[in-house]
Each structure stands twice: as structure tokens, then as C-alpha cells.
């Protein structure tokens, strides 16, 4: 297979990977961030201290974390079909990707937010802030560098997951590598996808590190 034959294939696959990772990352943040926050806020001595809720949430997150992604991918196909109407293609891959990444990201959010000095929460309360205001004005801004670092790790994990999801009919770089590289022995294409994946991960990491550094005023 010549480079000009590969190019459109690689371009198309990269685009699909971007879509899968981008959308699933977005949903992961939208769902994982509140869960991570709640894990901290419901903890003992925290603003919304609630032992039962904390325990329940923690258990759900742990169960999600302990399932190998490949199993999750297959196990939730009925759920995926319920949401997007199909179990193949880029859209269908986004669902298991997000479901897999949410507990992972939620734990990272929890760690990041827990790092915020209790004194700041207290100062915020003393200024008459509501819980929501404390979250918005203090907890999130103060943990932002750590949250960005957590997001970076999550996106990189999603790139890896997306290769797996792709193999089950989702498309993307992983799918390409398996279909052409593995099944048709197109070593050139295999190497090209691997290089692309490495470059992608590097870019995400550099971007994430840079942003986190810019945000931290230490």
C-alpha cells in the first residue's frame, strides 16, 4: 500500500478518533465533575456531609473503575443501543467510552478538590457564600490546575480506550490498525497509526501540562 493510498485512510481514521475522544471527554467532564465534587462534599465534616450518599456514590464509582474496559464495552451494548439506536460506529463508541472514563475522572476530580485547603472553604463560608458559590468561586478555581492535569490523564486514557472501542466496529485509528495492519499485514499502515497515536498522546500531554502550569500561581 502506497503512502497516497494510506493518507485518506489515516485522515479519516484520525478524524473519527478525534470525534470519539472529544465527545466522550466532554460527557466525561459533564458527568464526572459533579460526581467527583459530590464525593468530596458528602464526605465527613464537609459542606454536604452525608455518609450514606457518600458510601453509595463511592461504591458505584469503584464498581465502574474495577470493570476492564473491554468487558464494559460489551456489557453495556443494550444501554448503548438504547441511547444512540445502534452499537456500531463512532456515535455508539462514545457511550462506552464516557461510561468507562466517568468513574476514572471522578476519582481524579475528588483528589484534586480534596487538595483545596479547608481554610479557604471556611473563609468563603465566613464571607456568607452559599455552598454553590463556594464550589464555583473557591473549590473549582483553586483546584483548576489539578483538574486540568486530571483531564489530561483522562483524555490520554480515552485515546487508548478509543482504539479498543474502534476495534468493536467504532472506527478510528485503532480500528484501522487492526483491520489493515493486523488482519491484512499492512505493516506500513500499522506503523503509521502507531506513530499517529503516539504523536496524539504527546500533544495532549504537552498541551495539558502547559495549561496546568499556566493556571497554577505558585
Amino acid at each position: 500500500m502506497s503512502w497516497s493510498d494510506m493518507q485518506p485512510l489515516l485522515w479519516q481514521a484520525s478524524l473519527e478518533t478525534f470525534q470519539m475522544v472529544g465527545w466522550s471527554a466532554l460527557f466525561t467532564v459533564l458527568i464526572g465533575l459533579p460526581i467527583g465534587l459530590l464525593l468530596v462534599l458528602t464526605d465527613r465534616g464537609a459542606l454536604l456531609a452525608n455518609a450514606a450518599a457518600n458510601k453509595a456514590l463511592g461504591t458505584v464509582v469503584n464498581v465502574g473503575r474495577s470493570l476492564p474496559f473491554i468487558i464494559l464495552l460489551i456489557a453495556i451494548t443494550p444501554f448503548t443501543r438504547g441511547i444512540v439506536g445502534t452499537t456500531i460506529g463512532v456515535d455508539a463508541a462514545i457511550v462506552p467510552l464516557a461510561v468507562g472514563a466517568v468513574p476514572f475522572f471522578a476519582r481524579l476530580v475528588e483528589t484534586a478538590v480534596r487538595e483545596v485547603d479547608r481554610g479557604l472553604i471556611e473563609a468563603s463560608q465566613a464571607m456568607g457564600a452559599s455552598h454553590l458559590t463556594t464550589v464555583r468561586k473557591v473549590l473549582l478555581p483553586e483546584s483548576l490546575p489539578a483538574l486540568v492535569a486530571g483531564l489530561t490523564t483522562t483524555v490520554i486514557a480515552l485515546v487508548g480506550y478509543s482504539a479498543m472501542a474502534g476495534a468493536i466496529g467504532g472506527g478510528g485509528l485503532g480500528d484501522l490498525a487492526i483491520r489493515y495492519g493486523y488482519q491484512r499485514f499492512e505493516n506500513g499502515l500499522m506503523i503509521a497509526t502507531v506513530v499517529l497515536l503516539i504523536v496524539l498522546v504527546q500533544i495532549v500531554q504537552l498541551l495539558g501540562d502547559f495549561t496546568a502550569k499556566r493556571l497554577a500561581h505558585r
Partner: protein
Amino acid sequence: MIEINNLTKVYPARTHPVTALDGVDLSVAAGEVYGVVGRSGAGKSTLIRCVNLLERPTSGTVSVAGRELTALSGRQLRAERRRIGMVFQHFNLLSSRSARENVELPLEIGGSLTRRERRARADELLDVVGLADRAEAHPAQLSGGQKQRVGIARALAADPHVLLSDEATSALDPETTRSVLRLLKEVNERLGVTVLLITHEMDVVKAVCDSAALMREGRIVESGTISDLLTRERSELARELFQLGPAPEPAGSESGSESESAPTTVLDVTFHGDSTAQPLISQLARTYSVDVTILGAAIETVNGQTVGRMRIGLPGRFEDNVVQVGFLRERGLNVETVVPETVTPEAAGPETGAPGNAAADSLQEVAS
């Protein structure tokens, strides 16, 4: 301004619950600086955290500016908290915000000003605390003293009637402590903000407080205005403010001839207000032709008032000196007899600092 009634706080614990506050009554008048002192674990922090209900008391009531906070709903309490500024030992500034943005935070929470007004107000306050040129700096780029100034500016942003301060200077060096205390006093005088401060340093009380309370094991064991405390007999706070050291050994021990020493009455005399200006000791010596021995003295300015405390020895037993003691009391001095206890000779000395010794020398001259 702050009324605390029969406040109790028990921290529940499975084995033994801790009673951090045990029936505390406290009344802070509008416009004064009130200091609460006490040993570590006495319950000072718990008390001040109960004032804005960061800590819910187990029982008792707290009123600030006539509103009973303990009876308010969450929303009403938040509104009242906006008028109570708080300064913290570890500053508690947001590292993600610049000095100016930190000062703006309470205004954002209050929500009644526009962005531009908030900025103007923050700059005004940074100017008050002497940090106008560091508005853009982030806390990490500020020194401890500067951080605390930002903390004070932030506490003042929402125009509070009360400022609470828990060990605001404990993390600062002595020089910075003085400048921060001056700032607090200035804020109190210029803006009329009532200040309730917690400290374990008597020097802080001396420097800025109008009134003080002493806490021990969750109770207030003594309280009052400073001038009131200084005239009070056997005031622990006054004694702490003016350390003359423990009671000395019976007189004569210095001369090394204990055996033949005559009995001596040792008195602690506190001067304050007008009496500091009068040569009362020399009058005493002249009037009764007695030899007054000065054993130690300290003269200090407490909250702008000159106050002195002196330990003197009069020949004879207490019974022989009743008239002389009466003479001093009549002239408005606070006189306490010191019960001699057996102490190591060096224990009596070091408490009187250099200025005290100088004062003792000059007084001795006057007396002889």
C-alpha cells in the same frame, strides 16, 4: 455589638466528648477592640468561630449588631455573615486570584456591586492597607505580612461592623506583627469597626485592646476593660500584662544575712492614669519617714495609657504598714501584698525588661 450568652460547645466523641466552651458570656461594646487570651486548648478558636457560626454551638445564643444569629435561617445567616469580617492565622487567600481579586471575592458573594465598582472598592482597600502597588500580585508572591494585609482588606471589603481575628499575627515575625496590629487599630479607629481578636500573646493585648478576657478550660475566668482590670485587686490579666516575676524570697536574702533580716512587707503597686505623673513613692517615704526599697518595676503604654507596676518593700510586717498602704490606696493606686514564697533567687529578676529597670533606677532616686 457582640453579645454571647451562656454559650456551650461540646464536641461529640465516642469515648469522651470534649467540652470546648462551658457557659461563656461575653459582651463586646461597639467600637472597641476586645482581646481574648488563654492557653492553647482553652477554647478561644471555638469561641470566635461560634460568633459567625462557623461552628454551631451546642447551646446558648450569639447576637451581632442586635441580630440573634443562632435564631436565623441559612439564607439570613449568610446575609449577616457578610457584615462580619474575619481574618485568619494562615491568611486563607485564594492562590488562584490576585490580591485585588481576593479582596473582590466578598463583594462578588454579596453581589450588589458591578464589576467596575468592585474593582474600585478593592483598590481603595488595598490602599488603606498599604498595598496599592501590589494589586496584581498573587499570594505566592507576597510576604506573610503582605498576605495578612490582603486578608484584612478582604475582611473589610463588604463594610463590616465587626472584624473577627483568630491569631492573625501568630504566623508573623515581631516587626510585622507590630505593623499588622497598628493597621488593625487604625481600622478600628478610622472606620469604627468593632474588633474581637484571639491571641495567646499578651503583647498583642497591650498594643491594641480596650478590653480583654482570659479563658481557661472553656470558661471566661476574668474580663473587663484594660483600665478596669489594672485597678482590680488580684487581677490575673493585669499580672500577666505586667510581669514582675514570682514573689521574692523574704527580704534580706540578697544581702546574704538572712538570719538577722528584719521582716519586710512586699507590695505590688499599680499606677495608672494621673497617678503615674505624681511622685507618690517619694511622698510616702517623706510623709512616714520609711525606707522604700524598690524590688522591680515596669512602665508600659497599654493601649495609649501609661501604666506602671512596681514592687516595693516596706520595713516591718504588714500590720505595721497598714497606714502606708492606706496612703497609697487613697491616692488611687492599686496595692496588693505579695505573699513571699520560696523561689530560686534568679527567678525574680529576668521578667523586668531593660526599660523597667531604667524606670526602677530613676524611681529609686526619687524615693531616696
